[in-house]
């Protein structure tokens, strides 16, 4: 067998982008709903009301919920043979830019020239991992600049210890303030090298809300930081309120005994992502969104394992 067909992969990439930018995963929607219920002050309540109203409008009209449809970061698990995956993802991004449409955001970093198709050197960016389940799994995270611009990284000294991590988290959230569209999701990387650390911070944003790092020490730190910093008072859109955070996720790696890297990647309230698992027979399962007859019907987080098998792009 030659592997999964090029057309299925390209079409799935277009569909993933459309799903990601028009509808939030269920865990994020639920968290925003809970925050709306908790915000009683007029200013923060108005912001949350606008957010929820906008989500409904976007879903109803099939329109991107935020005009900043981001740059496109892909996470691919290569568990099944396929063709030139990078070329297919690039084709999918170019098509989605026209068809959804997405805002053309990718520019040359020095001349600032915008080719208008979201394609450029290393853009879209793709993280690869080997897959073990015989399927090709593709996740897209459209990443807006408002939140990304508030990201920080520090190479602390080992003697700074856990206190250093906590101080860094506090400083980063205060410095970001109203800019990254709170309530925000914090992705924190601890350990590794500088590049690994920031990569972990980004991957931490993919974890469903309400899940913890499997390492009990990291889970404790997540819990402590969320508890202390959610009530800092920045509030929805920085206009004050009870909730500043959607979640606080940490991913870690062992590091050099002389290093203490820590990084934060911030995600706005529009914490968008979409994942599809393509089976060797060409069937496509959407793990983050429920899809039926090409229409989004609501979505389920990965945790409950409910998926819409063989939807729209199913079959050969």
């Amino acid at each position: 067998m030659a592997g999964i067909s090029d057309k299925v992969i390209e079409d799935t990439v277009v569909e993933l982008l459309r799903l990601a930018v028009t509808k939030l995963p269920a865990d994020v929607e639920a968290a925003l709903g809970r925050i709306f219920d908790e915000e009683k002050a007029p200013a923060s309540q108005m912001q949350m009301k606008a957010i929820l109203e906008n989500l409904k409008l976007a879903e109803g009209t099939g329109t991107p919920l935020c005009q900043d449809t981001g740059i496109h970061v892909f996470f691919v698990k290569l568990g099944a043979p396929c063709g030139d995956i990078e070329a297919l993802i690039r084709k999918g991004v170019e098509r989605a830019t026209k068809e959804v449409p997405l805002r053309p955001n990718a520019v040359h970093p020095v001349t600032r020239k915008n080719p208008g198709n979201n394609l450029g050197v290393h853009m879209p960016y793709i993280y690869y991992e080997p897959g073990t389940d015989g399927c090709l799994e593709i996740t897209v995270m459209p990443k807006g600049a408002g939140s990304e611009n508030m990201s920080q990284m520090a190479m602390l000294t080992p003697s700074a210890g856990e206190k250093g991590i906590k101080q860094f988290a506090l400083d980063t959230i205060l410095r970001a303030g109203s800019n990254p569209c709170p309530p925000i999701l914090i992705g924190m990387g601890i350990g590794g090298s500088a590049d690994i650390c920031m990569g972990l911070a980004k991957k931490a944003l993919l974890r469903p809300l309400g899940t913890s790092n499997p390492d009990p020490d990291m889970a404790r730190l997540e819990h402590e930081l969320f508890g202390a910093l959610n009530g800092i008072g920045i509030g929805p859109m920085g206009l004050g309120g009870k909730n500043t955070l959607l979640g606080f996720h940490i991913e870690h790696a062992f590091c050099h005994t002389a290093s203490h890297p820590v990084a934060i990647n911030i995600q706005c309230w529009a914490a968008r992502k979409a994942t599809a698992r393509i089976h060797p027979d060409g069937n496509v399962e959407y793990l983050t969104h429920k899809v039926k007859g090409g229409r989004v019907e609501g979505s389920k987080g990965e945790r409950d394992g409910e998926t819409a098998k063989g939807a729209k792009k199913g079959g050969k």
Partner: protein
Amino acid sequence: MAEVHLKLPASEEEVRRLRAGDIVYLTGLLFTARDEAHLRALEFQHEGKPMPVKFTDGALYHCGPIMKKEGEKWTIVAAGPTTSSRMNSLEPQFLEKIGARLIIGKGGMNKGVGEAMKKFGAAYLAFTGGAAVLAAQRVREVKGVHWLDLGMPEAVWVLDAVEFGPLTVGMDASGGSLFEEVAKQVERNTAEAKKRLGL
């Protein structure tokens, strides 16, 4: 806290009456301008070249929309606000040399901009970040586009809006700022957070 419905262009007097915390709805022209449009407008002003629009005829909107061209006509898809603080270093000059009465954005702007707004009679209106479909629904027509060579997000789009809002007066022309009030509260809360974290 008042609810105000303004027709654009708004007069200096109307703008100076707005107070931080007021809710505002705007009807009239919005001109989008982000980093690149600010830079070019200031460059044009410096070189004595004509501006593509008279920015004081409407409101300045920190926004990079998604637009779709159908035939010869542009239609709006999504148009929420962008992070205003990126324009902190450019806005005082813009207010002084080119002029704007109302600035719409998200996240607020710094003290320097606040001072310039006080001096030249302007106010900052906060719209919910990411609420792009909500915003687009309040635009009845895309009147035109200038400087499209800067790319879709950075171009100057002329939008005809009806009851655009709800907008919250984040910074008024008398130095009042919701963002500063929130910052003071956050500072008080920080002491408690530090205690909880053992810092």
